[in-house]
């Protein structure tokens, strides 16, 4: 067999996978364009759009001034008029400045117009904490977006999922919030070849297990997998569900897993109160209460603005010890 006919998976970084997804979609559809701060000549604040302005030109790769409300609103208007913008937020913390455009305009225009207009747009960029970036650059705000009807919310953890889901998001007819993570950009994984997409709204079981279900997404998925390995060494067989899409939530996959294991731990980096895990727990209680052997446990970020100093920052974010302890405590309950 010739080498050229062999189909082998590629090892790519999360950053490269996103780059490929956007590049393929921009080649496929001339209406797709990328807009945001430093996406062009700087190659993206996190180099996700490396080589884009060179390939697609400044008409389709638009460096903006620091004006999130302005350019997110501009992209929304462009989508209403038939284009398919990808808005890069340098981080989702800055998305707060664009919330009015996202929540009051992008999410509602289809409904308010009785279906006459639609907003096919992706708003993407990193969320959650990296290392010691301080209180204003370290927030996990996905629950805010998940609360809003009209938005879809995606937070992939692996390069393969990132590519397939970003391509689906770009082809979607609705505004899609696509949350990446700074600490994921450099992580590597095998990525399927060619033009594949992953459907929005489908979770993925990243590890099969019998004793307990761990639900996680984005960066916390890696922590859950690590915990799964550690627990396996201690004879505990964890099933790990990667949500991938946060809204619409794939509650069927979660419930099916819980029915098998009888125990659920939700790992999320966001703040505890009114966090995404609270909603997941409510959905599981209402659909699988009788299958639960113990109350659902949430491992979350601490309810504080993110401190700068490393020991305190580490204390504010779920870590391996906390996840493992939570699982063990749950299993000893009953």
């Amino acid at each position, binding site marked *: 067999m010739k080498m050229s006919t062999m189909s082998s998976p590629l090892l790519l970084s999360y950053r490269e996978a996103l780059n490929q997804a956007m590049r393929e979609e921009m080649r496929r559809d001339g209406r797709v364009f990328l807009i945001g701060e430093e996406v062009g000549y700087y190659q993206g604040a996190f180099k996700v759009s490396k080589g884009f302005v060179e390939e697609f030109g400044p008409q389709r790769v638009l460096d903006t001034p620091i004006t999130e409300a*302005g350019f997110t609103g501009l992209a*929304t208007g*462009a989508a209403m008029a038939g284009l398919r913008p990808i808005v890069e937020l340098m981080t989702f913390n800055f998305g707060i400045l664009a919330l009015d455009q996202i929540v009051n305009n992008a999410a509602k*225009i289809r*409904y308010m117009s009785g279906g*006459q207009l639609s907003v096919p747009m992706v708003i993407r960029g990193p969320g959650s904490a990296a290392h010691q970036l301080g209180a204003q650059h370290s927030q996990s705000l996905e629950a805010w977006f998940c609360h809003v009807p009209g938005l879809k919310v995606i937070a992939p953890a692996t390069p393969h999922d990132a590519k397939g889901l970003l391509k689906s998001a770009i082809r979607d007819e609705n505004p899609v919030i696509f949350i990446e993570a700074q600490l994921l950009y450099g992580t590597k994984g095998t990525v399927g070849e060619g033009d594949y997409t992953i459907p929005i709204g489908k979770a993925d079981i990243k590890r099969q297990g019998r004793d307990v279900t761990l639900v996680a997404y984005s960066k916390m998925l890696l922590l859950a997998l690590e915990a799964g390995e550690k627990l396996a060494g201690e004879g505990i067989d964890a099933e790990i569900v990667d949500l991938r899409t946060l809204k619409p939530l794939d509650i069927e996959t979660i419930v099916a897993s819980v029915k098998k294991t009888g125990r659920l731990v939700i790992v999320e980096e966001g703040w505890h109160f009114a966090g995404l895990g609270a909603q997941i727990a409510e959905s599981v209680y209402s659909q699988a209460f009788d299958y639960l052997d113990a109350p659902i446990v949430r491992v979350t970020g601490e309810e504080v603005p993110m401190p700068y100093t490393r020991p305190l920052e580490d204390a504010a974010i779920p870590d391996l010890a906390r996840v493992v302890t939570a699982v063990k405590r749950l299993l000893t309950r009953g």
Partner: protein
Amino acid sequence: MDRQDLLSLYRQMLLIRRFEEKSAEMYALAKIAGFLHLYIGQEAVAVGAIAAIGPDDYVISSYRDHGHCLARGTDPCLVMAELFGKATGLCKGKGGSMHLVDAARNFMGGYAIVGGHLPLATGLAFAARYEKRQQIVLCFFGEGALPSGHAHEAFNLAALWKLPVIFICENNRYAMGTPVERGVALYANVTETARPHGIPTERVDGMDVLAVRTLVCDVVQRVRASPGPCFIEATTYRFMGHSMADPAHGHYRTKEEVEEERKRDPLTLLRQTMVANHLLTEADLKPVEREVAELVASAVKFADESPFPPREALYEDVYHE
């Protein structure tokens, strides 16, 4: 001056006037609920400006949007049915008074977060340029939007990227109850708020429909020939309260002031022009009055007889399936 042309402008303004008066009546009868912001007094701005553009151009407005929608040519029956919350309404009863949309006429909507639609207007203009279409955008808003960050971000982007959008500031002197002198630092000439962004500015008497149309025609030509934004201040006055919750003069302006401004009613001004130029007599306007009254009455009848949306409609159009 062409008789038919002026009569057509007059008819459009009269339609808005009578439609709005009837809306107020229907609000009093509880046929219309929620917030209702009437356009009475400002008709010459929408009619004059929209008369200056083509069917492919975009129009976008704020929450005081009935006038712009009607001037764009939307069937008054569909607008009234929308105000009544009926299934036959322009937006199936989901939008209401402040969120009229008529996509078929490129009327891209009324928006009720003050200043929030100015960035959308730049996006419509961006899309037109991106696809090399000759469309321009008319973006209407009140002077109350001028201090907002959205407005200035939109001005900067439009100027920076030379987008074909015409910002039309309808300065009716009151942001709800706050007079412009207490809300806009550059109140003496609000066009100054756009000029630092490098946007050419114009001012026009917004009570004079012919002046508005002439100026906007001129600006449209300039923008088509050499893309880039323009800012127009149309000085006007709303004869009614901010919304139906607010009496015509309230505590923030005097009855005398409102009476004084009413002397420059845009419909009266156009009527006087037509009579003075011997284009028609007051008697010639009778059939127009009658036709418009019938049209508005038929809109009410249509709205009244239409069904409310079924409960299943609640979940429709949240997402594009």
